[in-house]
């Protein structure tokens, strides 16, 4: 059974009809990529899942673990959705620049009460991204773009999500750093976190993901395994720079 299921979601932002009946599924343990041109509605899809944006029609269903019951989170408040195990790492990093690195990580664990486990998760995040430990007293606003990205991912992990929503982790980063971050994502996934990844860097995303969806102007137009889509003629033309 699916972990996350979006059924025919219609979303308006102000007067703009942004999502025109989006349906997609994420299964337990997967990395699923969502690719598409600028303005297609990828970010909106993620914020509809995490409760920042409301859908006008459609359903969002979530099952944290394979043996738990499915819950309807369509109308749940954002803070309730975090609690259920979905963590949204927003577009453009958006770390709290008034907080230092350590506080940013701690606030990721805001809803948790298990002090000891929080400490061990801090260790875990710092093993993934050692730079964060070195910079822990520094204000997050003074970090480089790459460091902020790592902090944003680390912060999102601190809630111990079952499902991690990532919005363009490669945005504005040097290719080498993007490699590193994608390797980390693979590790995070291997350690049991399911990932829904929005990416402009379609090539890398399709390589990493087991399955992927292509979105155009508010609708899902293609879906398949990462490999299938990477070989798809239309995808190659539109997103992989093939001629």
């Amino acid at each position, binding site marked *: 059974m699916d972990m996350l299921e979006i059924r025919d979601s219609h979303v308006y932002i102000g007067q703009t009809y942004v999502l025109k009946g989006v349906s997609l599924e994420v299964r337990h343990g997967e990395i699923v990529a969502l690719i598409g041109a600028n303005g297609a509605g990828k970010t909106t899809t993620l914020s509809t899942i*995490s*409760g*920042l944006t409301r859908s006008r029609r459609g359903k969002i269903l979530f099952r944290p673990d394979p043996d738990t019951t499915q819950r309807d989170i369509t109308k749940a*408040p*954002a*803070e309730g959705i*975090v*609690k259920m195990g979905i*963590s*949204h790492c*927003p577009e453009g990093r*958006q770390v*709290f*620049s*008034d*907080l230092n690195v350590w*506080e940013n990580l*701690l*606030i*990721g664990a*805001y*809803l948790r009460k298990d002090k000891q486990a929080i400490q061990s998760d801090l260790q875990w995040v710092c093993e993934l991204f050692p730079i964060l430990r070195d910079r822990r007293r520094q204000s997050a606003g003074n970090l480089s773009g790459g460091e902020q990205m790592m902090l944003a991912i680390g*912060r999102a992990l601190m*809630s111990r999500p079952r499902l991690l929503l990532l919005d363009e982790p490669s945005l504005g980063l040097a290719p080498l750093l993007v490699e590193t971050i994608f390797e980390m994502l693979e590790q995070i996934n291997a350690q049991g976190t399911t990932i829904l990844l929005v990416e402009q860097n379609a090539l890398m995303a399709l390589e990493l993901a087991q399955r992927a969806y292509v979105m155009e102007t508010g609708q899902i137009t293609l879906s398949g395994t990462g490999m299938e889509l990477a070989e798809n003629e239309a995808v190659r033309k539109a997103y992989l720079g093939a001629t």
Partner: protein
Amino acid sequence: MDGYIAQQLLNGLILGSMYALVAIGFTMIYGIIRLINFAHGDIVMIGAFLTLGLVISGKISFPVIIILVFIGGALMGILIERVAFRPMRGAPQVTGFITSLAISILLQNLGILLLTAQPRNFFCPDYLQTIYHFGPVSLRAIDLGIVVTAVVLMIFLVLLVRFTRLGMAMRATAENLNVARLMGININHTIMLAFAIGSGLAGVAGMMWGGKYGQIDPLLGFVPGLKAFVAAVIGGVGSIPGAMLGGYLLGFGEVLFVGLLPPIYSSYRDAFVFTTLIMILLVLPNGLLGRKTEEKA
């Protein structure tokens, strides 16, 4: 002459303490929901009358009254946020501003209706009226109480905001409402808390105001509200340390302006206040300690 200046500086410290307390609430509320809360000064008035009521009604000691007035102000702030500002959330900034203006007028007129516009004498127990002399300067016990209470409250606030989980949530919410929600922070609670703390401090400032000037009336909130606004802007609106700094600078500046220039200028003190504001903003558009970033849309 040195004694005279020292005395004026002391007066500035007292005035600045009250401005700072009111400015903190102003800046906290702005910092978190970008609301210029014109009704904030009227909480000062409510605090003053609440104090008077408590003093008249029984033998409650002043330290207890401080706590009760803080709670009273806080509840008032929560109520106003809940009924007036929360429904306006997400509306353009000017809508909130107009709403706050309406609340201000409402509170003032309710005050006049219930308490009449007649100024009332503010009672202080005798021990607060005792005058102490330190060399050339003298001060009343109540003045000392004002400064000490203000400083203690400000230390508490800074510790709360800097070092507690709740304070961290408040800073995060002030920086980015949506991302704060993604962390699981209930922003309605954080916003309510900002109103509660800010209004509680304003209530206590009202108690001080009454004690310092000896008379209170339902319109007294206007002046501290306006001055606190100026103090908050000078310090960098949104910044709590900025509000404290701005409050004290304004207190000192105002008192020295009146004290050092010939008496005929003293009626220009408010002109002085606003000239200072304009000059500071010309040089530092974000105030003294404000963030350099552009206003978020």
